[in-house]
């Protein structure tokens, strides 16, 4: 019971933040009732998905300081678990998603057990390596469609099918991922102040000291990794149903891993709102820059040049990302 209350305990945050968060939450709830374009709708769904990926990354990467650049492999595991079982056995999403999560957790324990002995950049690159190996395996593994990937046929179920998450309307997908999103925020809010959260931040500070305080460093990292992986693979399962077509290149590539980390890092690693801010900036920026500059003006690449420049600018100005800028302004005001 106390635990449940802790999910909703935002008391340590400034009023202003909560006010803005509540306003944004409300806006998200009523968003589909306004006649926005389908482009806006899919951009917002992307935003929600990447926020969730980013929240997952943030637990291990932000609070724990273990920079993982291979999370896409868990996205792939989640997506494939759902797609394979839906195509072969008609398994409902609500069954295949937890199964996918379990497989992902099992895989992450294997990976984590060995990889968490590595530090800093060695760790980051090892996570990339494992992710690429898994992708290469999926690219030749016939059972999961090899390089061709898997497609949930557009005519397989009749929409709306809530069990298999099969709808023609994006609105329905939207509300499902929005529910995930709210649960995600509440969970991270609980996590950051939980015992594990504290232990993790102590580990990030100094592993030796953490050990002397009775923390089993390896185990704490693996537990947190499992949390991160749960986020990513659950949303990966959703991705499979939403996109209905998955390929190794599309779900497990390095680009996706990087993008996930980018969201959280740009927004502010190790803060509750960081991943949301990162995704909230990068996803619309990417879509609309492309729409305005890339496709219309015919200047191929200029959208991403600007995109890259913005990332460079923020990283140079404030190492803690956008959230760091916010905090700095706040501190200056206080002083």
């Amino acid at each position, binding site marked *: 019971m*106390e635990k449940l209350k802790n999910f909703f305990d935002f008391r340590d945050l400034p009023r202003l933040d909560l006010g803005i968060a509540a306003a944004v939450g409300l806006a998200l709830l009523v968003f589909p009732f306004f006649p926005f374009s389908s482009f806006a709708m899919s951009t917002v769904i992307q935003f929600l998905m990447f926020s969730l990926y980013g929240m997952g990354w943030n637990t291990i990467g932000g609070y724990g300081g273990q920079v993982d650049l291979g999370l896409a492999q868990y996205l792939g595991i989640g997506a494939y678990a759902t797609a394979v079982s839906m195509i072969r056995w008609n398994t409902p999403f609500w069954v295949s998603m937890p199964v996918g999560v379990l497989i992902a957790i099992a895989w992450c324990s294997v990976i984590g057990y060995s990889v968490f002995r590595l530090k800093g950049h060695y760790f980051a690159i090892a996570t990339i390596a494992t992710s690429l190996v898994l992708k290469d395996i999926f690219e030749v593994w016939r059972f999961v469609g090899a390089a061709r990937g898997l497609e949930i046929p557009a005519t397989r179920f009749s929409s709306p099918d809530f069990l298999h998450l099969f709808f023609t309307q994006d609105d329905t997908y939207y509300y499902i991922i929005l529910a995930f999103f709210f649960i995600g925020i509440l969970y991270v809010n609980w996590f950051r102040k939980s*015992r594990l959260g504290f*232990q993790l*931040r102590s580990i*990030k500070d*100094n592993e030796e000291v953490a050990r*002397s*305080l*009775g*923390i089993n460093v390896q185990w704490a990292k693996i537990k947190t990794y499992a949390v991160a992986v749960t986020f990513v693979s659950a949303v990966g399962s959703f991705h499979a149903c939403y996109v209905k077509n998955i390929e190794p290149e599309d779900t497990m590539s390095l680009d996706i891993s990087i993008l996930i980390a980018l969201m959280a890092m740009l927004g502010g690693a190790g803060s509750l709102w960081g991943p949301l801010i990162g995704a909230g900036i990068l996803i619309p920026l990417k879509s609309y820059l492309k729409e305005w500059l890339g496709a219309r003006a015919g200047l191929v690449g200029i959208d991403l040049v600007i995109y890259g420049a913005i990332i460079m600018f923020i990283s140079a100005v404030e190492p803690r990302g956008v959230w760091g800028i916010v905090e700095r302004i706040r501190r200056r005001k206080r002083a």
Partner: protein
Amino acid sequence: MTALVEVRNVTKSFGGLVANKNISFEAARGELLGIIGPNGAGKTTLFNSVAGTHRIDSGRIVFDGRDITALKAHEIARLGLTRTFQIYAASGDLTVKENIMVGCFMKTGSRSVASARADGLLRDFQLEPLARHMVGELPIAAQKRVVMATAMGTEPKLLLLDEVAAGLTPHEVDATVASIRFIHQDLGVTVILIEHVMEMVMNVCHRVLVLDYGEKIAEGLPRDVVKDPGVIKAYLGERYAREYTAESS
């Protein structure tokens, strides 16, 4: 008095350098034991050996009736043996209170319990006004108090303190002495401390152990140890020796 911790013939070497050579000692329940010795004598190494920070080459360590020689650092900490670090770089993003809460979380999973216990420790160590500061921003004296409070959060039976009075003014040393007394007497924790600040050693320790070149060269009451010619030669120097013998006689 029964021995709370018993160190038997501990040897630890790094490459060719033997940092701890066949050291044995014990600390009784409720004792306040001091360890002194020249720089590089192997004091910190001995703490590392006892607290499981590194594996020892040979020897045996018994704590509270259990052989802990083969246990890992965090397992030993959970048994009630907590140590602090000589060079503690608290940079990170934890505030003073959060730091202490990490310690408290060893014994409880509940956030409210940990928070309440941390509040108590903040009060005990005069850290209340600093609770929301980042540890790295504090002056050294305050940092050391945070370190002690955090260690006390784990409710240890035995506390190993590594140079908590280094770099403090005499005033602050007095405050630290008070803190250690509080830990020892009011909370009933057995303490072993490493210190170069002799005022402190002379003041608070029941018994002193002297290391030199990895070996135990003397052991006894503080006022006896400072008269030991070997200790004077290796560690104290004539001037200090004169001072302390004068004081204690």
